[in-house]
């Protein structure tokens, strides 16, 4: 009986994600590899092999990673600090899974902005956490998608796309800048067009269109009140 109680207590703790600060942080603290900023020599940890772009925390240089080589591509302006539920390289938990924010891109629209956070979960899988004034969505990048520029041309809210997807929102945003590390190059100042879609099961899909091509992400809306931060 005693052994059972101990076992249950352990699983209870883990299931609720209450232990992430103790165990998961240690796992996150081991980067996949580290590089040195070619500009100032600062040590930059890389957590995911997919990382292609890093901003140096000391000199704010933008560093591209090309195979084993690193290349400085200028200096990015520092994003104005804004209040946020999540913080770079500070783990948070959602539904018992821990995530580590690695980088973020800020897009401006009209009088506001939204942010796309590149995060990895405790198994090392990359996700995108979209935060737009209290609306939180967790998505993964789709390896393939059926969308073409012609298909998405002039499409609006209510339009149906293959797979039972319905367009619920369209808009544009300007890339204001980024912080941390990212899996691809971002062009600061470039305008992005996006489509937001949903299907019958309330899944979420976001399609981003820019000069670099079309990207598709699939995931779901999440409850910000269920996010646990330290």
């Amino acid at each position: 009986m005693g052994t059972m109680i101990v076992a249950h207590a352990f699983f209870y703790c883990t299931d609720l994600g209450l232990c992430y600060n103790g165990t998961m942080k240690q796992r996150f603290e081991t980067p996949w590899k580290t590089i040195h900023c070619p500009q100032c020599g600062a040590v930059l940890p890389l957590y995911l092999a997919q990382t292609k772009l890093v901003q140096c925390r000391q000199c704010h240089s933008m560093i591209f990673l090309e195979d084993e080589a690193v290349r400085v591509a200028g200096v990015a302006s520092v994003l104005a600090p804004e209040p946020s539920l999540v913080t770079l390289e500070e783990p948070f938990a959602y539904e018992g899974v821990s995530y580590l924010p690695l980088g973020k891109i800020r897009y401006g629209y009209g009088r506001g902005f939204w942010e796309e956070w590149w995060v990895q979960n405790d198994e090392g899988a990359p996700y995108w956490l979209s935060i737009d004034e209290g609306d939180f969505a967790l998505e993964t990048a789709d390896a393939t998608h059926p969308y073409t520029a012609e298909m998405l041309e002039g499409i609006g809210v209510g339009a149906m796309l293959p797979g039972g997807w319905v367009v619920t929102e369209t808009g544009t945003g300007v890339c204001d800048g980024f912080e941390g590390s990212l899996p691809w190059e971002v062009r600061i100042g470039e305008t992005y067009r996006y489509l937001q879609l949903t299907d019958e099961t309330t899944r979420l899909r976001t399609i981003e269109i820019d000069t670099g091509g079309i990207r598709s992400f699939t995931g779901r809306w999440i409850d910000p009140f269920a996010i646990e931060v330290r």
Partner: protein
Amino acid sequence: MAAENVTAIQCTHCGAPLTLHGGGRIATVTCSYCGSVLDMNDHYKVLTQFRELQPPPVPLKLGMRGTIRGVAWTIIGWIKYASVDEPSETWSEFSLYSEIYGYGWLVYEAGVFLFSRRVRDFPLLRWEAKRHPRTVFYRQGHFVASEGAYVAEIEYVQGELSWVAHAGDQTTCWDYNGAGRRSLSIEKSPQETEVYLNETLLTPRVYSAFSLEPDREHAIHGTEGIDAAEGDTERAPLSTYTRGMLLLAGVLLLALLASLLTPKLIFQEVTSRPFRRMVTVDSDAFLTHIRLKAPSSTVLDTTHLTLYRGDHELYSIDRRAAHTSDVLLQETWKHGDNAVDIFIKLPTGTYRLDLVVFVPSRQQISVTVYERTMRLWLIVPLFLLIAVLAFPGLKRRFLSSDMGKIVGVMAVGTAGIYWLGIGVVVALLVLYFTVVKPVKEGKVSWQEVLNDD
């Protein structure tokens, strides 16, 4: 807590000073003085104007800050709605803004506050395909439609909103009540359909959160003040009566569990011969259970069991009678039974069991004795009764009125079916023993039975 970004502007129509608190999605600000709706994205150009300038009496106002669910919110906008079907039915919705959690709503109607947030993971396409079903399942909870669709109309606006509101704008609404204090609102306007998840708040806590003076609240609402909130009764602590009932139910539940776990086998023998055996009872907790079982009623009818303590006969039973003191089972078995269960309160000690078989046969009889036994049939009805008595208090605390009705109807229905079933079984038994059996045994004829009257 994040610093608040506050901007001060002047109304481009009347010059009144206006304070802006909201985030990037704010599209308009409506002047509190002249009712002009100003375009936030086009140099505060006047888009439209509200004629009704007299604000309804509410305890909150723009710019107030309060903490709900641990988040600091600022009241940035205010809409007064009225029901189109019943114009006297009005309510206020205050737009809330947090720099981290975005936007929310504080709905106020007749002293009751709801905290409301737009949700985007509701299966709206499925809901529309099913043509507004009566029940919905969302975030692991059931919600039941509280009434049919109704149409709400905007009467009055102040402050910042994320869209351009006009006087008379109409929204069709469907409300669903869930367990506890949760509810869903689905609102359909000509532009889009939105879903909101609501939570009834304790009215005194809202007053405290927004630092409202109690006097001010009572002066405005009179008897519709804090105590009028239905949500409070749902959230009110359990009464002493309900707690007592729950305690009793808990004790009985423990007894139920104990009855399954505690019985201990202290004697068992299967034989076709008479015997005399000593049995030791180690525990006098609960009852001692003696079970006499034969392969057939005929065999059982030939047995006689006697229980002694020393030379003193405590109890004896056979087909004809049971002789006893201190027994719970007062009568013997009937012909047709092939087993009998005897429950006795026995002090600890050593007892003697004598089994006599009047007509020896090869068929074997089983005698089993358990100590620490409880009788479920005494406990279960009491448990059910206490559960029914405690239900009103639990319903107020944990269930919405609609859910409470459903659970109540289900409970009464289950109890009704239970007792009806027992009644039917008793009636059939009575019919069998008074009519069918005598006829089968040739004691009376069907004709005599039918002509009995």
